[in-house]
């Protein structure tokens, strides 16, 4: 099973400098957090999806579709009760609440999608190199990229462990949500222990390959800005600036 998010393809998105792509993520976050207007958020989502589509990485969204749906679902359920409003539909549920929940759901989902597009189109080494070029110390950048790298390892280990416990007769599929949750708790122990053992070897292997030999190091990968980078940067900055301007002047 392939656990890594990065999709190795040759598109303009993959060739973009990691710093450019980080800027796009940042801009998405700014705009998404700034507005609570459905139209604006839908436009933003459309832009981000097009951006991802051009990079041929949207297939990765399938892998997190459950998370995306859950967020939308819970947001709608939660806010339909909590928000209040004039149009009461049933009990505490209001139409305004449902719409607001939908907006919040989109807001979070678009941020996740934007992050996902970044991780699907950028090699981990590029991320850390990008961070280094942004003056983040190499050790810090490496630690950050290692955290991303650990996710697939944890998923893989927990998959094996779940199978091992199922084989022993642990019934993980039936029961209510709470019951299921309780059944998963014992699985945390072998998962954590395996990961700690693994990371220990990882640390030893790092040192044994000369990690931290000197403060500076060569970078085999080359990154740099291209005309596409400048285009994307200009567009991103323009959209963000216009959004801020609009927000300050209450245009939407």
């Amino acid at each position: 099973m392939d656990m890594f998010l990065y999709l190795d393809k040759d598109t303009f998105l993959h060739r973009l400098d990691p710093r450019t792509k980080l800027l796009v993520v940042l801009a998405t976050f700014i705009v998404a957090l700034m507005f609570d207007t459905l139209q604006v958020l839908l436009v933003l989502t459309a832009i981000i999806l097009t951006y991802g589509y051009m990079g041929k990485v949207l297939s990765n969204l399938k892998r997190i579709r459950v998370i995306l749906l859950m967020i939308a679902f819970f947001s709608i359920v939660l806010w339909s009760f909590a928000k209040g409003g004039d149009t009461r539909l049933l009990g505490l549920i209001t139409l305004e609440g449902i719409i607001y929940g939908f907006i919040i759901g989109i807001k979070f989902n678009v941020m996740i999608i934007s992050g996902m597009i970044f991780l699907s189109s950028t090699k981990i080494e590029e991320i850390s190199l990008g961070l280094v070029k942004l003056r983040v110390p190499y050790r810090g950048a490496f630690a950050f990229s290692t955290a991303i790298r650990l996710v697939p390892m944890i998923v893989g280990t927990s998959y094996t462990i779940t199978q091992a416990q199922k084989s022993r007769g642990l019934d993980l599929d039936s029961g209510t949500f709470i019951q299921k949750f309780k059944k998963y708790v014992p699985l945390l122990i072998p998962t954590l222990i395996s990961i700690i053992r693994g990371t220990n070897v990882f640390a030893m292997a790092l040192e044994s390959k000369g990690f931290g030999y000197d403060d500076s190091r060569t970078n085999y990968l080359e990154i740099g800005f291209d005309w596409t980078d400048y285009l994307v940067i200009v567009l991103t900055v323009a959209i963000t600036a216009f959004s801020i301007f609009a927000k300050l002047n209450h245009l939407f």
Partner: protein
Amino acid sequence: MDIAEVKKPRSNAISIRNLTFRYKDQKEGYAIENINLDIENGQFVVIMGPSGAGKSTLANCLNGLIPNFVRGKYQGEVWVNGKKAKEQTVSKMAKDIGLVFQDFESQLFSTNTKLEIAFGPENFMVPRDEIHKRINKVLKIVNLEGYEERQPSTLSGGQKQRLAIGSVLASQPKIICMDEPTTDLDPIGKLGIFKIAKELHEDKELNLIIIEHETEEALEADRLIIMDNGHIIKDGKPEQVLREIELMDSIGIMALQVPKYFKRISSIVAEALPLIPEEGFERFTAMKLALDKKKYEEILQSELERENKYGDIIIEVKDLEHTYPNGKKALEGACLKIREGEFLAILGHNGSGKTTLVKHLNGLLMPTTGNVYVGGKDTKNTTIFEIGKEVGFVFQNPDHQIFADTVYEEVAFSPKIRGCSSEEIDRRVKEALKAVDLEGYEKEDPFSLSKGERQRVAVASILSARPRVIMLDEPTTGLDFKEQKRMMELIKKLNEEGNTIIIITHTMWVVSEYAHKVAVVKDGEMVMYGNTREIFGREEELLDTFLKVPHIVSLSNKLGKTILSVEEMVACTKGVKQ
């Protein structure tokens, strides 16, 4: 002033003086004690010894992981290329000595093969052009050309370990030390590593130190060091050391089978013992020995009787085909008929589909087409919980299975979730622990036990569910010879008590000495299936699937019969002058 008295041993690749180390959490004794060792430039050294002998500790001392990364009480000196390991950081030492670990999953971390190899040179500030050249050179050495852009996680085990070696080679250290690089590998993977080792050795500048379990491969080395209990107890040419059968037996390293056999049947002096099957064959004919036909017939007869005692068919696999959700076909047209009381070994390289096959037998996977019947019931119509009562599955890594605080709790888990009464649970735990020889360990914390013991706890926790069939995924991997033998004797006992056994394994002597039947899977197809003796007689065919029969089997095949163990061979030998 003490250093001034000893001549600084700069001329050797490695010089170790009075090295003693105790881990921080080690209560008594030392992991290694008073080690003195000199390794000259260009030597290929193999280090062997049982678990806990101190081999890995010694390896980690070489590049300063001990005491700079792993703490403890450290005495003595380690010089590597004229540098004192203790006084340098590990990353500084890495320029002189590269370390490859057993666990290949955890030592690879880059997005693709090229970047993995580039990581070391990058740290040493090698210019980019030079890194590019080195990548190409290394890819050629470790035979991974064409895999530049591949993600390490998508490579096979053998390829991963080869990449791990390559990533160390790229920094061009003078010394390479590999800590059990082949333990987790299938036969093809192992072969690939040994081939690289051999080629690297042709470079006279490079020092190669390999910690290894495989006795048969140690013959290639210039020098063989045997460790036990933290001491070096033997150091010499492999051909000499490997002839010391008694020594090997006493400390629990697998002795070469051919010299062992000749030692048993004759009084040839140690220096003259033949080592490999070819030499054994010559000696056998020269000594005018012969195989006793009557004895051989008796063995065949007793095997036939064993077969007649098998019960009904308990697992049946019919034209099984499995395609994974990503469209990859893992298994095609597999057929098996397993009768109660059988002992079946499933062989094949990593990714051949053998794990996919056994996961069908306990309902973890469902056939894409075809059927699997367990106890007469189609697995498609039952749940894994139901099948679990019939078929227990011990996973390869006991750490993936164990989670309780005490051994008792761990073993009691299965009967507990099956709703047994507390007396019944008590009885079953007792019975299971007795079976694996761990009585009195009830209150121990499983994680404080040794790997071999944890493996046995894992088996006990399956036994307590009282399944009729027990499947074990590589039950001997990562264990030393003594522990392997113990594990297999335990499994054999369970089999004799009526359990049906299915094991997946790479260890060929285990198959030849214990399994009744063998199924060989290659690229998703079952290419061979039959009695162990019959299958092991087809040595050439097995070689095509990269499986090498044990030396004694190979010797007997040259003599026209298939004999599975040294004991059998001794019993069948005729014409020995007493």
